[in-house]
């Protein structure tokens, strides 16, 4: 009987029900959009990076979010040093990598340069690496460029997506700075999104162009037994206390921690909208409980326990919130599409994602909010004495 009565009561005043549900929909929708940003970052990370990283990554000091954006810090002699002790630690390959991010507000002019030794096996760095057009990096000496005075100091392999977005073709010359340029010899694809924004160039010319000879951003270590990564990292950091050794899971947790913090901030902002939505539900329910005082008295007189009315009001609040949540998730989905469309132009990544667990979270939050905001009206409904309720004109 309770569901039947709850449904009939909500549909009796369609406009009020719709407006209240809309309030919740907006709150839930904005929450969904906000939180989808974190989900998008996680997805991008998981798809693009997590599986692709090295067994162990070596940084100078602890690795954090700023490690890649500052000038390279790690002296390259550690590469030689680690190579020497490689058998002792079960290291099968040591690769120095220099990452240089050239940011720009214009998407077409923002690149990530990866300097790697010319003879490195890119298949080992990227899963399912494949040349789409042209060829891999080869050796070449510095030579004057055909146009202008900038010497071509090396070759470059460009991620296919970057190539498309910035109209780079095989044979083009990329001007890195006034004294260095790279000639594009190939475009490539790989699993995940990382290579999409990358320009791979030889390590030494990139170091020279940056004036950072003998410095790299990090070293990557491949292990004979990847499952021993944690133990090996532990042993290495005792021998080299000045270095940081991160395993894949360390990197994920650094990233996860950063995303969590931003989740909390975004949830905080959303909470304001959710609280306003909750107040709207409470207000609507209080109003409708007040209007039905007499009717509730009759229902009690007929033999309903206070619990019946409590359940009724809570169910109405819950239904109201859940309908709002469903519409809100729809709105949020449109918002996510809009955010991604805007972001794709700028950074070439889907920054927002509407994941099943986000949908679940939104439904749960809305449901919890509905129950919470229904509590006060429900308690009121159950408390009015029958004699008073039926006496009221």
């Amino acid at each position, binding site marked *: *009987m309770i569901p*039947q*009565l709850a449904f*009939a*009561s909500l*549909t*009796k005043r369609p406009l009020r029900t719709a407006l209240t549900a809309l309030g919740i929909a907006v709150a839930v929708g904005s929450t969904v959009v906000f939180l989808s940003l974190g989900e998008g970052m996680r997805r991008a990370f998981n798809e693009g990076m997590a599986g692709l990283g090295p067994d162990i990554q070596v940084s100078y000091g602890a690795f954090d979010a700023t490690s890649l954006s500052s000038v390279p810090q790690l002296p390259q002699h550690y590469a030689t040093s680690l190579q020497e002790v490689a058998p002792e630690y079960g290291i099968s390959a040591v690769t120095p990598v220099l990452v240089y991010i050239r940011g720009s507000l214009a998407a077409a002019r923002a690149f990530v340069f990866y300097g790697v030794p010319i003879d490195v096996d890119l298949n080992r760095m990227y899963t399912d690496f494949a040349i789409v057009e042209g060829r891999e990096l080869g050796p070449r000496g510095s030579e004057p460029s055909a146009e202008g005075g900038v010497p071509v100091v090396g070759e470059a392999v460009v991620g296919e997506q970057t190539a498309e977005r910035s109209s780079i073709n095989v044979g083009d010359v990329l001007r890195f700075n006034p004294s260095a340029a790279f000639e594009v010899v190939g475009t490539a694809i790989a699993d995940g999104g990382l290579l999409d924004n990358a320009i791979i160039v030889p390590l030494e010319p990139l170091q020279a162009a940056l004036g950072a000879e003998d410095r790299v951003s990090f070293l990557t270590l491949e292990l004979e037994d990847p499952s021993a990564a944690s133990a090996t990292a532990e042993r290495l950091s005792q021998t080299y206390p000045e270095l940081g050794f991160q395993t894949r899971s360390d990197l994920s947790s650094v990233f996860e921690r950063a995303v969590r913090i931003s989740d909390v901030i975004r949830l905080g902002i959303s909470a304001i909208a959710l609280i306003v939505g909750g107040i709207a539900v409470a207000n609507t329910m209080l109003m409708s409980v007040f209007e039905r005082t*007499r*009717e509730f008295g*009759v*229902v*009690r*007189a*007929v*033999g*309903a*326990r*206070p619990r*019946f009315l409590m359940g009724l009001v809570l169910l109405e609040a819950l239904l109201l919130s859940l309908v709002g949540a469903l519409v809100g998730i729809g709105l949020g989905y449109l918002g996510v599409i809009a955010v991604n469309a805007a972001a794709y132009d700028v950074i070439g990544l889907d920054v927002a994602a509407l994941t099943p667990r986000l949908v679940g979270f939104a439904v749960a939050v809305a449901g919890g909010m509905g129950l919470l905001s229904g509590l006060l009206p429900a308690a009121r409904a159950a408390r009015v*004495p*029958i*004699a008073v309720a*039926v*006496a009221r004109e």
Partner: protein
Amino acid sequence: MLHAAGLRKTYKTPAGDVNALLSFEHSFASGQVTAVLGPSGSGKSTLLNLLAAFDTPTEGEVWFDDVAIHSLPEKERAGLRLRSFGFVFQSFNLVSVFTALQNVALPLGLAGVNRAERDERARQTLDRVGLLHRADHLPHKLSGGERQRVALARALANDPSVVFADEPTGSLDTANGALVLSALEEVAAEGRTVVLVTHDAALAGRAYVRLRLRDGVLEEVEREPSTELEQEPAISVPDPRRARVEAVPLASR
């Protein structure tokens, strides 16, 4: 058997205590309509609320057979109202978002009767009051008299032992009022106790027992129907309806 002894109800108000009912004592016989009469404010509704387990007395006892209503916890009062009592109020009796049928089915649903059976029994009871053809109408589509008959059907749905009616004809014209009263008389004739609060001396005159309240005190108990009993109601009840009443016995009776 419904019995009240030494009943007192005192309302605490900012302006002081109001003794709405004092030392009330009476046994309500089954099989008859007992009318409660008295001027406005004399304590009629207060008495009915105490008898019907809506409210607790300040002092005194209310017994229903061997159940002490005055000291019953709310949960059991609800059960008593559901299974043994029925109610008709002056107005606003019905749940406005429920159809006539759903309103009559409400106490059955509360008692845990399954949907198919409660619809069937609600239909039978609606038919008793001659309103089966209005089963799917919402209350606001019904006339005042029809609404009161639906309320009576609901009061009877769980086959109660006692039916309370507080001014059930108060917002009806004479003809419809007489119809409702006749229905109550039939209900009493089935062996139930009917307690009827009314202002209307003409209606009260048809009752076998009349209690007169004044300022919360039971002034007088009249045990014989007055001469007005001989008068026919202003309109007579249509025969087909009476026929149906006899043809459909109350469920589970």
